[in-house]
């Protein structure tokens, strides 16, 4: 079975800027795939390469096994939920959702029936007559989702779809998107800069850095076994240890990562390594402690309920041996 989307050493250069640089990716059919990275890392350009709004300068993109090089966006069986939703302000919600069917020449009654069906799917029954301007951000998001699903795409692309929503709504929409994807069984490709979002929703995550894919894997692999310094630091802000530090911390002379929440702080004289507290940041469910360990800065995370040392205090640091994850590359 061919993959839903396949990148074969795809590059997209804008003059001297290498927005996407020889990327290889395979997105399996029916999966929930996240492209994660900081802004300017090439993840959105990759999404636009799939939708056809950008063309690769090198390499090829296969959608269900077919080279999409010469296929314009309006002929691809791929639909997009845009970051700003891009709802048509002069049409009501029903006509917005039915737009894809109108373009295909489906009759008014049939397309309106289908639009209502999709509005029910995203829990917006009865909103058909409203204009987009009369909806809240979360409702617009749902309309954009329904509109993108009306043509029954095999792949749905979502460009930072939750970025404009407030935290509570964002969490609700995360659950809803996930269950929607499972019910429809189609491939979702999702661009985000929010690592929590990517880890909690996706089956597989590709971490982008400077136009390249830094690592592809399940959320667990990405989080627990970062392949390199960038992934370790970007996903969950892990402590990155250069080889000499790893040795000092009881490992081989290799690059390693150590999760802040894996570090235990001990008052008194114990601990594998000693450190001095330089800063505290209260996060609610936990407190983030920055420590100076002989010139090397480390972060530890203490869950709420456990006593927090004071700034300037000397403490011992301890961790389970398996928490020290060795990385392939720097």
């Amino acid at each position, binding site marked *: 079975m061919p993959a839903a989307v396949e990148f074969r050493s795809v590059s997209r250069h804008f003059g001297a800027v290498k927005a996407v640089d020889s990327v290889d990716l395979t997105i399996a059919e029916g999966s929930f795939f996240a492209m994660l990275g900081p802004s300017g890392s090439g993840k959105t350009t990759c999404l636009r390469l799939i*939708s056809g*709004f950008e063309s690769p300068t090198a390499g090829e993109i296969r959608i269900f096994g077919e080279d999409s090089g010469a296929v*314009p*966006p*309006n*002929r691809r069986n*791929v*639909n*997009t939920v*845009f*970051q*700003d939703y*891009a*709802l*048509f*302000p*002069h049409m009501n919600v029903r006509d917005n959702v039915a*737009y*894809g069917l*109108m*373009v*295909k020449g489906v009759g008014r009654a049939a397309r309106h029936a289908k639009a209502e069906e999709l509005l029910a799917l995203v829990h917006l029954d009865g909103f058909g007559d409203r204009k987009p301007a009369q909806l809240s951000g979360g409702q617009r998001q749902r309309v954009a989702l329904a*509109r*993108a699903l*009306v*043509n029954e795409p095999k792949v749905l692309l979502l460009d930072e779809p939750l970025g404009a929503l407030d935290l509570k709504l964002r969490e609700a929409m995360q659950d809803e998107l996930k269950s929607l994807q499972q019910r429809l069984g189609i491939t979702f490709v999702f661009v985000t800069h929010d690592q929590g979002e990517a880890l909690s929703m996706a089956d597989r995550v590709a971490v982008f850095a400077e136009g390249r894919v830094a690592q592809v894997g399940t959320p667990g692999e990405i989080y627990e076994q970062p392949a390199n310094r960038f992934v370790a630091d970007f996903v969950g802000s892990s402590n990155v240890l250069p080889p000499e530090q790893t040795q000092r911390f009881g490992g081989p002379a290799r690059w390693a990562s150590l999760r802040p929440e894996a570090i235990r702080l001990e008052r008194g004289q114990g601990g594998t390594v000693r450190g001095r507290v330089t800063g505290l940041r209260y996060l609610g469910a936990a407190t983030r402690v920055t420590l100076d360990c002989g010139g090397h800065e480390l972060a530890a995370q203490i869950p709420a309920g456990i006593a927090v040392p004071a700034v300037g205090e000397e403490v011992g640091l301890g961790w389970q041996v398996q928490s020290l994850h060795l990385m392939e590359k720097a």
Partner: protein
Amino acid sequence: MMPAASQPAPAPGIAERLTALFWRRPGLLLALLLAPPLLWLGIVYVGSLIALLWQSFYSIDPFSGVVVREFTLKTYGELLLPQNYDIILRTVTMAAAVTLASAVLAFPIAFYAARFAKGRWKAVFYLGVMLPLWSSYLVKVYAWKLILAKEGIVTWAANGIGAGSVLDAILSIPVIGGNSLSTSFIGTFIVFVYVWLPYMILPMQASLERVPKSMLEASADLGAGGLRTLWSVTLPLALPGIIAGSIFTFSLTLGDYIIPQIIGNSANFIGMAVYSLQGTAGNIPLAAAFAVIPILIMLVYLAIARRLGAFDAL
């Protein structure tokens, strides 16, 4: 030592007192700012419009030529006389044709400027559109008279490429044709379109620029081709600009009295009628009644535009 607080505060200056007053009474500042323009608009502008309306309800004594200061609808009745009705019909037809042609010509230019022109080309666009507005209107019209004259460059060029017979065929069309381009309605039309085109391009370009790119992409993403996107997304979203531009071209053509006087076959337009009626003929009431016609037409036009939803996106 005395505490500092007990020292008498220096008397506040007039500027400070004014600032405090305006801060306590924000309405006062607003009123002061708005009074001059409101007086201007209210008395000089609306006042003279009302005076004009008023005059149109007077009539002229046909024997003595003296204005009879009595309320009557007789003058409006005169507008329906064939010779006057023709003028109105001719002017409105010309204004509609000029507006339509301006819109068709302006759209590609405005679309290019809004979607594709960047940096230097954008500057070239603005310069190209605005430049004609910087030179005298009369000079431009007379220049066009020479260009369109029988001995002018258009006839010369048409003959040079062997298209002289085509030009003759166009000029032999009844009503809009004539002896030469500069003495036909076609010539009047061409010059009107030239002179008012910038007023169509600029608002159109502004409204096209406001259409987000993602909306055009969303349309393509949902399967629409270029024409479908143009028709269903771009044009409806650019409609306020198109209507704004058409208000300019339509009303400017309705009121103009110089172009049809210099270029064309001397047939009367509303503006020319007003000009001669209030001048040599001394028939102020009929001139006023004529002047009310464009106002009424524009009001109807705006009402239709509003009904079409042209101002929904404002």
